[in-house]
């Protein structure tokens, strides 16, 4: 295939970015999207130009590093698929593909398509854990946990922290990300002790980072590569309100 790529280029956080067009040739439909980007970058380097910076690592859809906004959708046209797992058979020969970074005030651009998502780490630091030091645990089978609860907690825990929910939201809200972690931990017996405080302090940090409010458009769920459900947002709200009133 032959494609035209319209790529966001921005040399540093304060530079004024702009789109640039590139043609790439010899793209195989079995290539992943990032392998197609590799072809572009090899071409740019050989032409003496600056390659496009983007984050990527595992290339198997689990590390959450890759984050391209492709033709107006986080991670592109395939549902429940990260950028690295998107394959070129999703496109037609001679297509033009528009590639942007995940845009949100709380994700400042580092260079080109690479953004700074450390706001997510700072939210986790405010309560995305169960306070147990190494060596304090009782036998793993001491507390049976209903299979359904364990499975639902696992559904929430599969979040990869990529930020697609934020990029998809017109308000740049991080509610799906925050709620997935709160729901995962608050649902389990081990996490109940700190459940109220966890919900409040993680939401407070989310606000402090400048993420917007949730207005229930569910764009986050639609674009989440791991299919995290908005039901978790309801669970978070319940924990948050319960703790606020109780406190």
């Amino acid at each position, binding site marked *: 295939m032959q494609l035209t790529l319209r790529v966001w280029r921005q040399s*540093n956080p304060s530079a004024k970015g702009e789109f640039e067009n590139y043609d790439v040739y010899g793209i*195989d439909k*079995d*290539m*992943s999207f990032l*392998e197609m980007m590799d*072809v572009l970058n*090899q071409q*740019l*380097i*050989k032409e003496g130009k*600056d*390659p496009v*910076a983007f*984050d990527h*690592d*595992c*290339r*198997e859809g*689990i*590390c*959450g*590093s890759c984050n391209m906004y492709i033709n107006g959708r986080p991670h592109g046209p*395939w549902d429940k698929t990260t950028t690295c*797992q998107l*394959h070129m*058979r999703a496109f037609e020969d001679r297509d033009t593909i528009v590639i942007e970074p995940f845009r949100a005030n709380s994700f400042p651009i580092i*260079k080109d398509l690479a953004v700074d*998502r450390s706001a*997510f*780490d700072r939210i*986790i*630091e405010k309560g995305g*854990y*169960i*306070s*147990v*030091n*190494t*060596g*304090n*645990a*009782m036998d*793993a089978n001491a507390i*049976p*946990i*209903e*299979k359904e609860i*364990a*499975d639902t*907690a*696992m559904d929430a*825990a*599969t979040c*990869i*922290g990529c930020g697609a929910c934020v990029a998809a939201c017109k308000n740049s809200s991080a509610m799906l990300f925050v709620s997935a972690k709160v729901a*995962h*931990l608050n649902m389990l017996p*081990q*996490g109940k002790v700190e459940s109220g405080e966890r919900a409040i302090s993680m939401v407070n940090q989310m606000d402090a980072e400048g993420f917007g409010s949730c207005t229930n458009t569910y764009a986050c769920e639609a674009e989440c590569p791991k299919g995290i459900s908005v039901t978790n947002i309801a669970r978070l709200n319940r924990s948050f309100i319960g703790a606020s009133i109780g406190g």
Partner: protein
Amino acid sequence: MKLVSKEPEGILSEKWTNYKSSVPLVSPANKRRIDIIVVGTGLAGASAAATFGELGYNVKAFCFQDSPRRAHSIAAQGGINAAKNYQNDGDSVYRLFYDTIKGGDYRARESNVHRLAEVSTNIIDQCVAQGVPFARDYGGLLANRSFGGVQVSRTFYARGQTGQQLLLGAYSALSRQIAKGQVKMYKRHEMLDLVKIDGHAKGIIARNLITGEIERHGAHAVVLATGGYGNVYFLSTNAMGSNVTAAWKAHKRGALFANPCYTQIHPTCIPVAGEHQSKLTLMSESLRNDGRVWVPKHKIDCVKPARNIPEQDRDYYLERIYPAFGNLVPRDVASRAALYVTNEGRGVGKTGVAVYLDFEDAIKRLGKDTVEARYGNLFEMYQRITDENPYEQPMRIFPAVHYTMGGLWVDYELGTTVPGLYAAGEANFSDHGANRLGASALMQGLADGYFVLPYTIGSYLSTQIRAPKVDTQHPAFAEAESEVKENLSALMNIQGDRTVDDFHKALGKIMWKECGMSRHGERMTEAKEKLGNLREEFWGKVRIPGRLEEFNPELEKAGRVADLIELGELMMDDAINRNESCGGHFREEFATEEGEAQRDDKKFTYVAAWEHTGNPAKAKLSKEKLKFENVELKTRSYK
């Protein structure tokens, strides 16, 4: 160099308990004054950094990714072993120890492996307490599955995302210590050198990957938990950023590198599709619990659709050759068998370099829903990559580089040959011998980080309680920093006409062909020459765009590839030296008539530890003799 393993005396099963009771402690008041650097935040690094923080040490943790949660441990799929015997199927600490020693083809240290088996049960307890949502049965208790090379079900799992859940558990513990100020986290930082003062590790030189700034960081001890070096093959299941640089720089500063030729080729990966391929994707070994591996009996059938080949024309070769273990033989055995049948011309798919992994019988026996519940996410991943539906036609799989058993040589305390420098997880060589069993990497990473290092590092740090805070103005820091800067400038100034990836692919091709699943002494000697030439060519012709003082991923890659080329030369030395076949190291000259690996216990029951001499082509060998006091060395048979 004389290698002192520091194994405690006494009965095997009491060694660790006795060690813990007698190891010198560091008082809480002293811990507050002691700094530890941890490089890497995968399972071993994150768990170590979190636990050091909990104990009261001041920790500086480093990762090259944009968040500690993205370390490549996250991609481990199948599970984690523990000798819990929850299934009442006869498992025990001793059996896990024995299976690991045998699986490693008798090339690991007994005392280390027994300790690993002992702490395995604590790991599961710890992870459940952290909220890791392991799979459970309807009674609410933890579920287990079986993995290759063993006859019990001792593997705990969280769907096909066990590594992710364990890493997020360790990351959450780490985040808690970051919030408390016990750990200072340096993200998007890469260690580029080790700093030694009076022979002891006292810090690192790191590059801030966003600004390009070179930084000095001092500490009373340094822990490397920087993973394996599978990317020396270019194509592997490792993440794109996985690299050997931190360990290699430590090696160049005096840490011996052990058994580099022991690499694991995982039997069930999605086959290479074409020249564009940038990495390979694993399909969890757990699939071999229910999937059956086969190729057509006759070459002529290889091009037919799989479903058109009748039962009697299929060769379920693992079941045929290894009836006792069948599809669940260890990884090295399964991989080599796949190589043989494809070499015979019976491979399938467009390239002919693949075998089938078929779920037809499993779907008949269990129903599609059960198969989907067990492996649904893996099937989806397979379909996204290959555009084929594994519910309707068999998967095509082929072996790929997955894990490296070799690594920095460490003693029982996980200390390297540089005092004050430790190595944990895949970065060390210690527990898996010549072949790692499935679901044991996660176990080892977390064992080292949560339960071993926090004790053993105290033995060294108790000697450092009077040492003042490390002064990064010391000339040793200045010298290391200027060497790093010179090296980076040298790379930038080459401005040749070949990209870093060109060289990386060339390296990978040589390594995969000559130091992969099947190796030969003479061919490797030639290959080593080629690597030497490649190294020279790299330093004469590589082209790196951009500047030093900016976010420059090509520069990062270039530094890593330069180190991988040198490592490749050492791997060849090690593989040429080891005139036997064992585990993942298979030498064509040393095989039985049936083509099975032939060990030479008389000559090679030792750890090969290599010392850097200043010339990457001329490393010096030291040997640590392995003593087997509890296990009798046998020919591994899975027939």
